[in-house]
């Protein structure tokens, strides 16, 4: 499905909530600074609650196709919560609740008719710590395609996926060995290959390098550059240099103290081209953060 551009997204859909005014601001902003790119996700006034606690408040932003979008910010600012909303992984968390909309190519992922399983087949995820299955390297790759009913040549798909994740040369002679025999960096690339194997549209990466050494990190970052021609990538990272190195767009989040609560709620401070965020941010809080004066 061809993505619509941000301007057409206001068209009301069946069963959707009334649209808050904040969205208009974001659209104006994106029209001004980010002309005519295909939008994958259009997040509209999204708030996430864990029980009575509001983890993220009123976030609106557009995520573009075939680009790397970085979510940065201090601990507890809701980056991980945000990214897990994009493929409904928050469904797994007891008492998590979402307000607002996540439009994926124009369709609200939180519409009652949407099956989260279908969402996750299109929007894959790579996690903070490498989490290969306790199966062979080969079976790790084939798990996703098999459950999705893939009928083609499995060997070919395994090779392709591992090639894309720049892991094929290292493992081609040991495909039957346990994935847990690989090093941490290899495991993470295997997880990326596994994700790629289901031929998703978007890959979400939640601090994919936080458990890796610098060399493995560099390889994963190179890999992301190779992958973005085919996929849209959203990455959560603690590491500002990483966001600056890999991403085109950066969203800066921070944690705000709420008046009525003792815990802090994540808010989106600024969303712009990465270059802009790091060289000429428009919000003081962003500037303090990226220059290392805070967080």
């Amino acid at each position: 499905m061809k993505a619509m551009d941000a301007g057409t997204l206001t068209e009301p859909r069946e069963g959707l909530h009334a649209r808050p005014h904040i969205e208009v601001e974001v659209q104006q902003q994106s029209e001004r600074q980010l002309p005519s790119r295909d939008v994958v996700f259009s997040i509209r006034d999204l708030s996430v609650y864990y029980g009575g606690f509001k983890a993220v408040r009123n976030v609106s932003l557009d995520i573009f196709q075939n680009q790397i979008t970085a979510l940065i910010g201090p601990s507890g600012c809701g980056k991980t919560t945000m990214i897990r909303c994009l493929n409904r992984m928050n469904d797994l968390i007891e008492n998590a609740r979402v307000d607002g909309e996540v439009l994926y190519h124009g369709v609200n992922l939180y519409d009652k008719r949407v099956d989260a399983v279908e969402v996750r087949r299109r929007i894959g995820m790579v996690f903070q710590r490498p989490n290969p299955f306790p199966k062979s390297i080969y079976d790790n790759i084939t798990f996703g395609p098999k459950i999705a009913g893939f009928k083609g040549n499995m060997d070919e798909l395994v090779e392709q996926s591992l090639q894309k994740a720049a892991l094929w040369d290292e493992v081609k002679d040991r495909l039957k060995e346990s994935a847990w025999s690989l090093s941490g960096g290899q495991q993470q690339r295997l997880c990326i290959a596994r994700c790629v194997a289901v031929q998703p549209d978007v890959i979400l990466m939640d601090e994919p390098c936080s458990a890796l050494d610098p060399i493995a990190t560099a390889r994963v970052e190179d890999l992301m550059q190779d992958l973005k021609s085919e996929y849209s990538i959203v990455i959560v990272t603690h590491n500002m240099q990483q966001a600056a190195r890999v991403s085109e767009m950066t969203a800066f989040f921070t944690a705000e103290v709420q008046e009525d609560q003792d815990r802090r709620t994540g808010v989106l401070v600024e969303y712009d081209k990465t270059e802009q965020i790091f060289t000429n941010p428009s919000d003081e809080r962003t500037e303090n953060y990226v220059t290392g004066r805070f967080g």
Partner: protein
Amino acid sequence: MTSGAIDIGALQGSPQRRRRESLILRAFQLAAALSVLISAGIVFSLLGEAIVFLSNVDLSQLFAGGWYPRRGEFGIATIVTGTMVVTLVGMVVAAPLGLAAAVYLSEYAKPRVRRTVKPILEILAGIPSVVIGFFALTWISPEVIQRFFNDASAFNMAAAGLGVGILVTPLVASVAEDALRSVPQALREASVGMGARKRTTTLQIVLPAAVSGIVAAFIIGMSRAIGETMVVAIAAGGTGGSAFTVDPTGPGQTMTAAMTALAVGSDQVRGTDGTFQSLFFVGLLLFFITLTLNILSERFVRRVRQKY
């Protein structure tokens, strides 16, 4: 303090405290040693009497067609088979039921449900087996077994086996649930993140990852079923002895029930030579069977621990 100007006395500490420490150490060592010694003592007494039994009895009697200790027929095969039949019936009930309960509790139940059900399950495991035995005899046997098998006798191994199964299910469920819960959440997330449904995740990721713990749960359940006495003594019949049989609808004798029968009432123990000692022989056999099973399950559990 200046460097180098220190002698051994300065670092020795108070001799009184050191003496007290060593005393405490001794006390704990003694407590640990005592439990080992008692176990060893049990094995030795079993071994001694078992040897007396083996040297007194005509060894061909060990392969007699039945277990009638007072007549001098010690057909070991009869009671070993009886144990196997009862254990098998018990595990046919306990393995699927226990595993299903474990999967429900670990994968599907809401935390609140789990918090209430798990303790109840563990209380269930503590029901005195004599109660279950009585239940097996007075309800399972007439209402279940005799209903499906018209010619089943009132005392039958199937009823005893079902009773044992009920008794063992909570144990299997509890151990298997621990195994399932020890599967890292990251694996479930990985699977769900690939677009796997709950069922797929449970069957293809969580269960295989927990397989050694689940096998351990089965083995522990089996070893408990083999050792179970009261249920079979009450419901399986064959109090005085039994002919060799593999028919679960008929009465039979298990190793534990045979021992009970021998030990209860002095008139039962008297008989031909070696009747009393046969009790020790059977006990020794039982001891080795359950020991082997426990070592096996220990192995499996350890394999789980190493993996994560």
